[in-house]
């Protein structure tokens, strides 16, 4: 049974990774926590839900529509709102809170408070197989979500490591001043990163809509979980976010079985606490340079 629990937890963790990767990336480049990330996640989920119920588009396919859309929204929000309030991180965080509250209001008006979830033909399909004598069950939506998340994260990782844009983003994460000195257009990198960050959360939202149910207010629960994952993984680190997300998925499920489901969130925060005490930069993060 523990193996089954662990397996389900890790599959869910893969989807968490996709949900938080953009948040980590945005922090890395802009040194700003985007509180609206959870609201954008729910918005992505609603758009998938809409495309599915109105046009019959599968949520995984709907990523092709909503991710580019979110990219444009991200660039727009960064250029039109965030870059205008200047360099004070505190103000930017306040601004993202305002965006989150506004989005919640708009979503509440559009979709009411009824909880929604996407039910496809394969929603309750389960693949069962046996390893040795152990029967295992893998729900198709979680497997699909896990696979799609890994694919998208791999593509993102390649962009970050193999392209000029990726080098510019990583240079900005490591040292913005030095990056600017060698000719990186920081303003453009910031806008692009915010766009990419939202595009990934749109994809995460599409996966999320298949597995979880949500309404406009759900972002409050999820942003705290998402923030915890990226702090655990190391702010700004994509592989760190992936490892932390898988770890959270596994720990959340295992502790629910070994102890009780009531204290499983505590176990996760305990790990977070220990990491912050002994390794404040997170699992794979680098310490912020003090200039």
């Amino acid at each position: 049974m523990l193996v089954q629990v662990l397996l389900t937890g890790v599959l869910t963790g893969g989807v968490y990774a996709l949900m938080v990767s953009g948040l980590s990336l945005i922090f890395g480049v802009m040194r700003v926590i985007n509180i609206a990330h959870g609201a954008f996640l729910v918005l992505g989920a609603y758009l998938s839900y809409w495309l599915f119920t109105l046009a019959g588009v599968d949520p995984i396919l709907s990523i092709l529509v909503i991710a580019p859309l979110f990219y444009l929204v991200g660039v727009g929000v960064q250029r039109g709102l965030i870059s205008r309030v200047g360099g004070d991180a505190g103000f930017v965080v306040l601004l993202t809170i305002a965006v989150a509250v506004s989005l919640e209001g708009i979503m509440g008006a559009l979709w009411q408070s009824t909880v929604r979830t996407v039910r496809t033909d394969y929603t309750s399909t389960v693949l069962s197989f046996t390893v040795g004598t152990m029967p295992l069950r893998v729900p198709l939506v979680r497997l699909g979500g896990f696979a799609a998340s890994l694919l998208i994260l791999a593509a993102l990782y390649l962009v970050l490591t193999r392209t000029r844009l990726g080098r510019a983003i990583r240079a900005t994460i490591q040292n913005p001043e030095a990056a600017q000195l060698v000719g990186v257009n920081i303003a453009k990198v910031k806008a692009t990163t915010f766009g990419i960050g939202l595009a990934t959360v749109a994809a995460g939202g599409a996966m999320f809509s298949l597995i979880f149910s949500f309404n406009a207010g759900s972002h409050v629960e999820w942003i705290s979980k998402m923030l915890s994952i990226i702090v655990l993984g190391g702010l700004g680190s994509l592989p760190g976010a992936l490892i932390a997300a898988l770890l959270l998925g596994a720990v959340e499920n295992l502790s629910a079985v070994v102890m009780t489901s009531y204290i499983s969130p505590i176990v996760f925060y305990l790990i977070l606490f220990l990491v912050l005490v002994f390794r404040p930069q997170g699992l794979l993060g680098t310490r912020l340079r003090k200039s």
Partner: protein
Amino acid sequence: MRRRTTPFLTVVAVLAMLAAACSPAATTTTTGQATTTTGQTTNTTAAPVATTTTEQQAPIKIGASLPLTGRFSEPGSAAKQGYEVWAAMLNEAGGLLGRQVELTIVDNASDQDTAVADYEKLITVDKVDLVVGPFSSFLVIPTSEVAARYGYAFVEPAGGAPDVFNRGLTNLFFAQPARGARQADPLAEYIGSISADQRPKTFAIVSQDDPFTLGVMDRAKELLESGGLTEVFHEVYAPETTDFSALAIQVADLDPDLIIGGTVLEDSIGQIRAYQDAGYQPRAAYFTTGPSLPGPFREALGDKTEGILASISWFPEAATNQNAEFVAKFVEMFGGSAGDVPEDAANAFTVGQVLEQAAVNIGSVDNAALIEELHKGTYDTIVGPLSFDEVGAPQGSFMLLQWQGDTFRIVGPGDRAEVEPIYPKPAW
């Protein structure tokens, strides 16, 4: 997780609340059918405008703080609609005691402290004539204390947990057929009616940590165990829980014959999907809230709803006082069809009916006189005749529903059943 968030998120929450409190949209005043969004100044007492011929009487102001956002937003919004339908119908028929009724409904974001502050303000600043209750025991318990302190009658639509009635309050009246915990009674009666060789032998309880659901769970456990069933699993999860897969895998491992979910809605869908994923097929399945909200429940689960049981206080086709008019008016005001009218809206409408009939009986909206009257009278409502004992607990019983095909039908108790229940439950 709500109690363990970082200080940073607490700041976020406070800011969000401030934003909501400052927003002019936070207060909605309803008179008749017209819903206008106003700032807070319009709610200060205005002298009645005297015309040259007849003196118009000031409207009767009724206040409520409802969870329109946050985890109870679904039932909270339904309750708001129920109150609005009641006020609209009443005003069209000439008002209450010849005066129009004006509702002031504010959003407490499903937060106890906000709800308490809201009722304080409604009574002391807005000086409403009457107050009506919010959704669910969690918010009814603290807010009813506020009403008691100011001597206000507190008729409420959805707080039926044991703790609602054991605090010595005499101003509270629960406008559903029976105490919340008694929702489990028709289930236990039904299980007991199944022939002994077919009857479930084991059961599991998986419940959200909420005063209402836990009250039902305690009562269900007691009744089922005294009926000879054995509990094999009992788990209470935090309200913030979103992933039920680990719980479901444990339940599947023990394979109890009957599963009882103490749920609100979102979690009933989460639990059922997780049970499907884990390959758990019980012989009977019961969830407190969720199956009784047909729209979202069916949308999320499709034909996997077949055979699922729940308790209910009201349904759209019931032949009770004003029910047809209520359903028609609801559809007129909010669209959809009769099947879309939520039970929580009906419970709020019931509150209105009780208050209205009590006020008419005594010819006044004086709260002390109303409290006295409410302990004595019997009120003919859309959930049937209601009367209250000395602590405000209603003296009736719930109905048992079961999903059959694309809707739910009443299967118990015996004298109110529309169709025979399906047993064992088909696979989900």
